[in-house]
């Protein structure tokens, strides 16, 4: 056993020396390879992290939201509907929800204005960290708003939501019902939509069906649907990026094949000499195996570690660009650093195995070079 180890160690030495002799070529290969792994790993870590976050956070969302539709568009719902919904068996509470958007023409930003279940006192607001950043305000400051009657409305910032809640609250403006109605001249007796709690999660779909039967102009949205929407969004987005990644991977494999297949005259001579001094075809194959393995292992380690730093420590600047779009306000959030062995295994299979397969035939070609034909050249 020690003999075998010593032999592999010696061959690895030769392999590393041979890689070093063609530093330029192999370094470029390593860089491209690491970048490929890095891209794939970043996409995987990032979309898995966001999906996880969405699933966990939205598990606290209302079980059911009931909207009213009018001519195919979302319309305000009469609060009286709540009474009818409350009589359906299995329903816990029904609460009108008041929310909407306020467009801040000065900054070009869109706020989400909402009345929470425990609203702040009239005249005061709670704002998300994104708004505080944009408007450079602190707790206690006054913020002016232009109401729908073209009147100025001064609201005092009572509290800024904690930075850890960025992902759900960055553009949030929480206020009292009276202020909400004053700001938007919101008619009384209606709400934006209704939230319904259902004690038994198994019964939510039946409750939703009964709501539509009783109020045909409504549209219930299940919490499961909300979570499924986000899972679908991130799967789809992740899938799209993975397809892009697939193209990159393919390009890289062609590149690797080309590098491995294009033996320089010098390399051929080296192999010829090795054979001449008594190396066998099997030994040369082992040498080639170690050359490939040292490159792919290094690239895999570099790529995944860089992706970890990129996604979890630097907040994925490269991927976040695809998310941020044209908005003025965007969340400044940090994903929970979490990777698992399964992700790494999959990543390994997706990046290292194709590379190994792509370089097998070229390295066999190299190993079966006839020594005397090389020497004679």
């Amino acid at each position, binding site marked *: 056993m020690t003999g075998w180890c010593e032999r592999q160690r010696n061959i690895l030495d030769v392999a590393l020396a041979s890689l070093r002799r063609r530093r330029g070529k192999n370094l470029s290969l390593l860089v491209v390879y690491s970048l490929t792994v890095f891209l794939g790993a970043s996409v*995987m870590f990032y979309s898995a992290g966001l999906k996880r976050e969405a699933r966990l956070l939205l598990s606290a969302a209302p079980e059911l939201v009931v909207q009213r539709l009018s001519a195919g568009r979302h319309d305000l719902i009469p609060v009286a509907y709540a009474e009818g919904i409350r009589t359906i068996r299995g329903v816990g509470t029904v609460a009108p929800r008041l929310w909407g958007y306020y467009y801040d023409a000065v900054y070009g930003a869109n706020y989400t204005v909402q009345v929470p279940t425990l609203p702040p006192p009239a005249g005061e607001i709670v704002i998300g960290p994104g708004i505080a950043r944009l408007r450079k305000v602190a707790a206690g400051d006054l913020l002016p708003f232009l109401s729908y009657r073209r009147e100025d409305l001064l609201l005092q910032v009572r509290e800024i939501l904690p930075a850890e809640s960025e992902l759900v609250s960055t553009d949030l403006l929480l206020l009292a019902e009276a202020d909400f109605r004053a700001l938007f001249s919101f008619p009384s007796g209606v709400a934006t939509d209704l939230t319904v709690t259902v004690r038994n999660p198994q019964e939510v779909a039946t409750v939703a069906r009964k709501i539509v039967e009783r109020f045909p102009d409504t549209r219930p949205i299940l919490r499961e649907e909300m979570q499924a929407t986000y899972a679908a969004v991130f*799967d789809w987005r992740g*899938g799209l990026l*993975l397809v892009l990644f697939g193209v990159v991977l393919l390009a890289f494999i062609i590149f690797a094949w080309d590098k491995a297949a294009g033996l320089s005259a010098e390399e051929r001579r080296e192999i010829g000499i090795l054979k001449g001094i008594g190396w066998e*075809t*099997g030994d040369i*194959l082992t040498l080639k*195996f170690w050359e490939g393995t040292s490159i792919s292992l290094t690239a895999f380690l570099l790529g995944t570690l860089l992706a970890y730093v990129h996604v979890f420590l630097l907040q994925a600047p490269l991927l976040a660009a695809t998310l941020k779009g044209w908005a003025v306000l965007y969340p400044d959030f940090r994903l929970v650093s979490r990777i698992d062995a*399964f*992700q790494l*295994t*999959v*990543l390994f*299979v*997706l990046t290292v*195995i*194709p590379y*190994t*397969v792509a370089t*097998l*035939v070229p390295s*066999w070609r190299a*190993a*079966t070079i006839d020594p005397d034909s090389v020497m004679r050249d």
Partner: protein
Amino acid sequence: MILEPGILALILLSLITSGTILYALRHIVPILYAWDLKSGSEGQLQLERRTYLLSTLLTWAFVAELTSLLLLVYTAENLHERFTGAMCAAGVFNLNAFGYPALLLKLGNFLLAGCWLVLNRADNSARDYPLIRGKYLFLLVLTVPLLAEGVVLGLYLLNLQPDVITSCCGSLFGSRAVGLGSELAVWPMRPLGLVLLLAYVLNLGSGSFVLRKGRGSYLFALSGLLVLFLGISAILSFVAPYFYELPSHHCPFCLLKADYGYVGYLLCGGLLVGATAAAAVGVLQPFATRPSLRQIIPALQRRAVWLGLTLFTLCFLVATLRIITTDFTLFG
């Protein structure tokens, strides 16, 4: 189908393995026909070179095959949250008709591919390609289950419907259910335990005989396979219940969970790898008398025997220790 990295990786692995096998087939046939070591012709030289390529390619393909077994179980374990009724991998494999056949084919191929790798190792260690016909004939036979596995696995993965309601391990391995798993699960404990113990002792005895006298390889291989089969039945019948401390819970997959310290990987993995080593000892035996292998094969066999015996003994110790130390008892 579900777009999931694990599934993508499994499909990629399966494509690579099948592709390599098909590519290898193209070169095996000429080798089987025209191989003539005494000839120094250009054609023979080409063939000799090809064998290097084939053996490297196939080694990698089989290594991929072995990793994909782990990945398959891992993926199924990972997916169980997505399906109603599935508590663990057992339910995920039961999602459509191809799940369990795919798993069984994979287990069988693991055994066969392991034997082929050992055979290849022996052949490569000798100077005159003594096993060339044997190992490639073996490979020819191996193609059928390997390609079948690729097809069945593909059908399984592509037909995963997220809205199907599956059954949990409780009804799959319960005593009232029908099917292979439940048939094995209801085997009575005492006779099964006794037979298993006998098989193990036989394996131990024949193994030490192989180590000392160099004879009895076939007995060792057969008893090793017997230990695998009986051992899996024993896990379903009483070892798993002892780990769960529940007389009615026979599922082998829940043992793979963190709740039970991943002990299932040790038990099932140990049995499978041990049986593969044992089978390899038997597969090597007919070639042991070839002049160029007279030194190589006994050495290889000895190592395989050690590996098999160590793993089996480890499994036995772990299972027995649990049965002895826990308060729970099935005799009652």
